[in-house]
């Protein structure tokens, strides 16, 4: 391994790619070359560092200085000042609200300080393409330990003792799943990693795969040893091409180093992993559908039992775990079950990675101990709501979950507490919405999603969600009738009780949960034909506030319907009969004179 005195880590996670980190990276490299530092300083692309909102972000090691919102033009100064003279470029540091002193090192920033990173221990701070860096941070030591010092049963017992539960949604105890599969009759057995990450708005698994692929591979091999399997599959969604690429690189490196393949560490244990790429079907995240898809079939779920532990891939006993679940395994093996069990709440051990998105200041990835309150996650780490708006709710569990309103923000988050609130932990997506989001519309959005993604195999899901969607469409377009709410509730119960798989069984959740906390919004749409959030277009009336209007005429010029009239320098008016509610005028007015009521 070459020795460099400094490493410049450039985040190349999806968020930073979309804020043009590649241009920053090439500018840094060019300047490093120009200053003749190429032999001393190495530029490395990492997975998501977490604070995506501040992208493009860069960290410089060994000092751990964190620069944010970089432009290619900033590269010259970073190289000439920081890398050459050792002077931190303060104007590029992150300024924390209410903090007079600028913090230079990333681990002193509130955003990082409040986190406990186990699954994300390496993500964003190592080169994901280098197995050497993974090894330097204890990588593959856990595999070495189980192969040389532990029996398969001891591995199972350690995982059981740690209290680790599945991070893919349902929270099933991982050790128990391994034990059931180890004991099941049938050969060969398989280890499958669910990297389908279907919840739209969540990107935890993606970040682990792109930022620390070896952690998943190592864990799969450990699982293989524990259950007696020598073959693993990773099922990755096709929307994540970079994750696939990183995994391919990692697999070939691991094979090259003898960490995968035949006779690993000379112990006689064989294990290899193959990648399978999905093709855009949300239902394939459901485990039985996923297994069908690996077999090259339509990804339709089948009834359980038999569970995959008994009859999984090609009818053989199979462990299927989520990416984040696997990423927790090596540290548990190295630090022991008690260590892991000491973190979290009574029934939910360890940490959870959440993807903060939507109307929140610090969008990005955070990992916190189970039991952290929603308020800490959204306001203290997430920095609250942008634009001075008011927090309205947080949606967890994606299309299978529900929303949580403000009065429950102090709830410590774990599997049980979220279920009690009528939602689920899910995979860790947290969508924050503010006063501008209509909860009926949000429920409709999720229902449209499941309606589109329903595989159509059973009618409660296929037809029931369609009926529900029709009703919601009616309500949001001002055609709601008395009795619609009761009808929605009745249909929900029917679907929950009779759908074949988890997709259908949980599809009504977003409707039920918004009805539980925001029933008044449904009622306002139905009875008063009003959308309190001002989001449902059909229920809006555009109106010009005569006190604010300066009569500049811009809105009238832009209105496609010719609905606005008025004399120059006099307040203008909108003819509601002509207005097609396109919203153009509201966007154009420089005086915020146009409002919706």
């Amino acid at each position, binding site marked *: 391994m070459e020795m460099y005195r400094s490493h410049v880590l450039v985040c190349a996670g999806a968020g930073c790619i*979309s*804020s043009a980190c590649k241009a920053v990276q090439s500018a840094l490299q060019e300047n490093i070359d120009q200053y003749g530092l190429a032999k001393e300083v190495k530029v490395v692309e990492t997975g998501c560092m977490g604070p*995506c909102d501040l992208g493009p972000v860069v960290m410089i090691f060994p000092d751990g200085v964190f620069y944010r919102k970089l432009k290619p033009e900033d590269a010259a100064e970073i190289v000439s000042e920081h890398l050459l003279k050792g002077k931190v470029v303060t104007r590029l540091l992150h300024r924390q609200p209410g903090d007079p002193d600028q913090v230079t090192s990333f681990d002193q920033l509130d955003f990082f300080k409040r986190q406990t990173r186990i699954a994300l221990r390496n993500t964003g701070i190592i080169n994901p393409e280098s197995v050497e860096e993974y090894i330097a941070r204890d990588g593959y030591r856990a595999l070495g330990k189980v192969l040389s010092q532990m029996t398969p049963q001891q591995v199972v017992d350690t995982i059981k003792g740690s209290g680790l539960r599945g991070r893919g949604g349902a929270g099933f105890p991982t050790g128990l799943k391994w034990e059931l599969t180890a004991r099941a009759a049938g050969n060969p057995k398989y280890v499958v990693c669910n990297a389908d990450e279907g919840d739209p708005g969540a*990107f935890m698994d993606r970040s682990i795969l792109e930022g620390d692929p070896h952690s998943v591979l190592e864990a799969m091999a450990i699982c293989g040893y524990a259950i007696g399997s020598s073959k693993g599959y990773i099922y990755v969604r*096709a929307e994540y091409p970079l994750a696939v690429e990183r995994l391919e690189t990692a697999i070939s490196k691991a094979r090259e180093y003898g960490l995968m393949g035949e006779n690993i560490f000379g112990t006689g244990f064989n294990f290899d992993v193959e990648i399978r790429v999905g093709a855009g079907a*949300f239902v394939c995240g459901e485990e039985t559908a996923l297994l069908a*898809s690996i077999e090259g079939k339509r990804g339709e779920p089948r009834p359980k039992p038999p569970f995959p532990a008994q009859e999984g891939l090609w009818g053989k006993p199979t462990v299927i775990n989520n990416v984040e679940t696997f990423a927790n395994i090596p540290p548990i093996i190295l630090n022991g079950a008690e260590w892991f069990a000491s973190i979290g709440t009574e029934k939910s051990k360890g940490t959870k990675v959440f993807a903060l998105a939507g109307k929140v200041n610090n969008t*990005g990835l955070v990992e916190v101990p189970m039991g952290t309150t929603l308020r800490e996650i959204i306001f203290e780490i997430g920095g609250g709501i942008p634009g001075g708006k008011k927090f309205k709710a947080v949606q967890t569990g994606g299309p299978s979950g529900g929303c949580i309103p403000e009065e429950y923000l102090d709830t410590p988050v774990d599997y049980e507490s979220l279920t009690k609130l009528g939602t689920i932990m899910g995979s860790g997506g947290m969508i924050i919405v503010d006063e501008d989001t209509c909860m009926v519309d949000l429920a409709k959005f999720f229902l449209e999603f499941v309606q589109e993604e329903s595989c159509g195999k059973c009618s409660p899901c296929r037809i029931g969600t369609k009926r529900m969607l029709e009703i919601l469409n009616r309500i949001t377009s001002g055609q709601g009738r008395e009795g619609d709410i009761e009808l929605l509730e009745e249909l929900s119960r029917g679907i929950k009780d009779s759908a074949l798989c988890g997709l259908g069984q949980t599809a009504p959740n977003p409707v039920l949960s918004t009805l539980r906390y925001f029933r008044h919004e449904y009622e306002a749409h139905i009875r008063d034909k009003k959308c309190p959030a001002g989001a449902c277009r059909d229920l809006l009336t555009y109106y010009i506030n005569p006190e604010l209007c300066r009569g500049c005429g811009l809105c009238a010029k832009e209105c496609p319907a010719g609905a606005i009239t008025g004399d120059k320098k006099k307040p203008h008016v909108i003819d509601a009969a002509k207005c097609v509610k396109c919203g153009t005028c509201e966007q154009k007015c420089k005086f915020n004179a146009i409002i919706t009521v």
Partner: protein
Amino acid sequence: MSNSCSCHAQLTPDHLAEVDRILESYRGQPGSLIQVLHKAQNVIGYLPREVQVKVAEKLDVPLTRVYGVVSFYSLFTTKPKGRHKIHVCAGTACYVRGANQLLNKLEEDLQVKPGDTTEDGKFSVDVVRCLGACGLGPVVTVDDDVYGRVHTGKLADILSKYDKE
């Protein structure tokens, strides 16, 4: 097969030869149908009937099964796409930040519905559910380029980058 669409993607003998090569490399591997279809679509841009027939023959699976798989998965398409592929994310994070307005504007400007291609075959527009860049929503991709925090005012600028062919 009549190709009523005005797109330029055409099935060539080169394509078919490439598909043969792909099929060869997967010979004897169980469950490779989806992976083969991915690779074939990468080469040709879509999955015309001839290709599906060939895949069925070579992998020795019934054509109905190939067709069933192609129609089940939303990323497989039997229609040729535009020279530039626009994807608008309509995942939850992008939705609450206004992805719908973007899509409406795009439909209006390009006169296409999601899933279709413009008259001149230049752009095709599709909706996807989450590209994993949720922190920077709304997200739009054009071919391999990813754009974050897109709003309606930024669309024209982005599309103009694809003016020169």
